[in-house]
């Protein structure tokens, strides 16, 4: 990532998050780090994998929300994400996100310099609490994704310009589990037809039906403001023109205060649209109100 990118992100984040912080005095009562961060799909989770945790820190008598800016830079692509989420009583999470994938290398050849989609998502906490229930916290989520320019995905064999992912997620924190540090474990099962998360459309010539994908992550809370961990996300492989790989990343999140979190990750996104080994740095800034 270029050094200027982080500066720019920080500036934009401060300018856009300040009004939200002013809107509400208190970001909520749930304990530090139990809101997770925001995924590239706008849902509370890690960077790539949705968790059962609800966005922000609202507890059962409260509401709240988050605003997030994220950016990933690989050899041939740059992904920018802007997202916002609302949490009502730690029960329902509603979120929107816009993803823009700059085709740094392919742009000239394709005559289009970006792929873009909007994601409207909802998550409901079905049962349990990540800290207080022996069986952990269980949530069910939907992500409705809508392509903004479908020409390129269509040309490479995608069937639809919109699609809805459904996932069931479980999260549990084990107190003092690793060297007396708290361990957070998440497992999600997603039903999806999305190609590269939807940026290359939905369904394809190789496969056009829903498939179940496993997504997992684990993080260790070094203390209440630092979390380190890793994520893995299984993906479909629907398009004949280029293979698609699973994603994984290792991350570190800094949560100096409930109002702010900064996440950095090293992500391996596999081959994308025939360009091999897309790996790079991911940075995400989140403000909570």
């Amino acid at each position, binding site marked *: 990532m270029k050094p200027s990118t982080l500066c720019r992100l920080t500036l934009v984040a401060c300018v856009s998050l300040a009004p939200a912080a002013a809107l509400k005095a208190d970001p909520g*009562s*749930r*304990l530090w780090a139990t809101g997770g961060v925001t995924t590239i799909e706008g849902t509370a989770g890690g960077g790539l994998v949705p968790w059962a945790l609800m966005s922000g820190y609202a*507890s*059962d*008598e*409260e509401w709240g929300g988050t605003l997030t800016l994220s950016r990933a830079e690989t050899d041939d692509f740059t992904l920018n994400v802007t997202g916002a989420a609302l949490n009502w009583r*730690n029960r329902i999470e509603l979120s929107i996100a816009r993803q823009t994938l700059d085709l740094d290398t392919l742009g000239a050849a394709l005559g289009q310099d970006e792929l873009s989609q909007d994601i409207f998502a909802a998550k409901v906490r079905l049962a349990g*609490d990540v*800290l*207080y229930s022996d069986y952990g916290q269980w949530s069910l989520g939907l992500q409705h994704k809508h392509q903004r320019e479908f020409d390129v995905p269509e040309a490479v064999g995608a069937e639809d310009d919109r699609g809805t992912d459904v996932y069931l997620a479980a999260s549990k924190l*084990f*107190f*003092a589990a690793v*060297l*007396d*540090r*708290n361990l957070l474990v998440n497992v999600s099962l997603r039903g999806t037809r999305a190609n590269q998360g939807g940026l290359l459309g939905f369904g394809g010539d190789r496969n056009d039906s829903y498939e179940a994908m496993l997504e997992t992550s684990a993080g260790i809370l*070094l*203390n*209440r403001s630092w979390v380190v961990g890793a994520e893995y996300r299984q993906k479909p492989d629907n398009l004949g023109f280029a293979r698609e790989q699973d994603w994984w990343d290792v991350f570190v999140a800094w949560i100096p205060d409930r109002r702010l979190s900064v996440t950095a990750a090293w992500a391996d996104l596999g081959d994308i649209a025939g360009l091999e080994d897309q790996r790079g740095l991911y940075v995400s800034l989140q403000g909570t109100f």
Partner: protein
Amino acid sequence: MIIVARTLALAATLALATACATSNRSGDSTLYQGLGERSGIAKIVEDLLYRIVEDDRIAPQFKGIDVVQFHTNLTDQICEISGGPCTYTGRAMTEVHEGMNVTETQFNALAEQLILAMEENQVSTSAQNRLLGRLVELHPDITHR
């Protein structure tokens, strides 16, 4: 031969028993010591009380309580839970919190104040995590009653 085997077996059993006893005792008492023993716990609970009074989310619930009794009983409870030589003589958790309808927000608020009180008293992250892991077991007996 048999005698040697028996002696060995006995020695092994004894060694194991001692190891277990020591590891049990040291395992438990490290947490108790990590919290600063009974006097350290009493100080944490005292700081917790000041914090409760200042916290609008929970202060109303504690209005008019017998502060000395609460301090003694919560100190003894944490002392016992952390493996210290105390015996909790207060009422059962379900009985104490009956009719209070403690919400998740309030439970979280109290947990937050306890963590901050422990930090104020330089309790290590390890000891904090271990105590919290034991206290959250009480969550079902305390909330929504």
